């Protein structure tokens, strides 16, 4: 258990920014989300709902495959293939909550 006795601890207390994006690429919110990711030093992008459309075409953010997590049922419903851009998860919400609640995390929802 960590000092606060509350949340999972992250690596070396460095702040981690979790971005949950549920909007399609041409929206103002997706644009803002990607700009914030570009400013962040430690970003992870979770794509759910219409957010998975951001995987069409070029990779939505300059993030490695491990740092982009996409929700499998949302991809399948929409006919979007994640290819090499993202980690596809059936336990999307478990992973999201684990990351979001880790001690050094902040979460931004778009």
């Amino acid at each position, binding site marked *: 258990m960590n000092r606060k006795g*509350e*949340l999972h601890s992250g690596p070396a207390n460095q702040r981690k920014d979790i971005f*949950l994006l549920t909007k399609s690429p041409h929206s103002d919110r997706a644009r803002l989300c990607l700009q914030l990711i570009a400013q962040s030093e430690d970003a992870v992008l979770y794509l*759910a*709902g219409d957010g998975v459309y951001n995987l069409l075409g070029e990779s939505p953010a300059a993030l490695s495959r491990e740092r982009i997590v996409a929700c499998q049922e949302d991809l399948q419903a929409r006919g979007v293939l994640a290819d090499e851009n993202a980690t596809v998860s059936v336990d999307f919400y478990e992973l999201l*909550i684990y990351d979001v*609640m880790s001690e050094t*995390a902040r979460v931004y929802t778009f």
Partner: protein
Amino acid sequence: MRMGAITIILTDGPYISEYAEMAYKIAKAALKKHEVNIFLYLDAVHIPKKGQNPAFFANAGELFGELAALGARVEACPRCATARGYAPVNGESEDYLGAIKITSLYRLAEMLEESDRVVALSR
């Protein structure tokens, strides 16, 4: 004992968007280890309405009833609820499923102050 608290804010009603269902999935995952508060704001005050019977989607009222039974605190904005025909009597509406209260917008602020994380889902 649950450690760490997350507050989820919703503004859409059920079915019109997938945010009620997404909030359910987030809350369900969070409730395994954490405290969960849900504040129903604007159109989201329709979510706890009794008697929902969707033919093609999951029943949002039942999903949120389940969350409340699992220990989530689900509260609705009284201004939004009263405007939309859910006038509270002692914090409850006869049109609402039990366990979901109509409280005060100040409770939103309290939930935020007391939470470690906040997730707002809206169109």
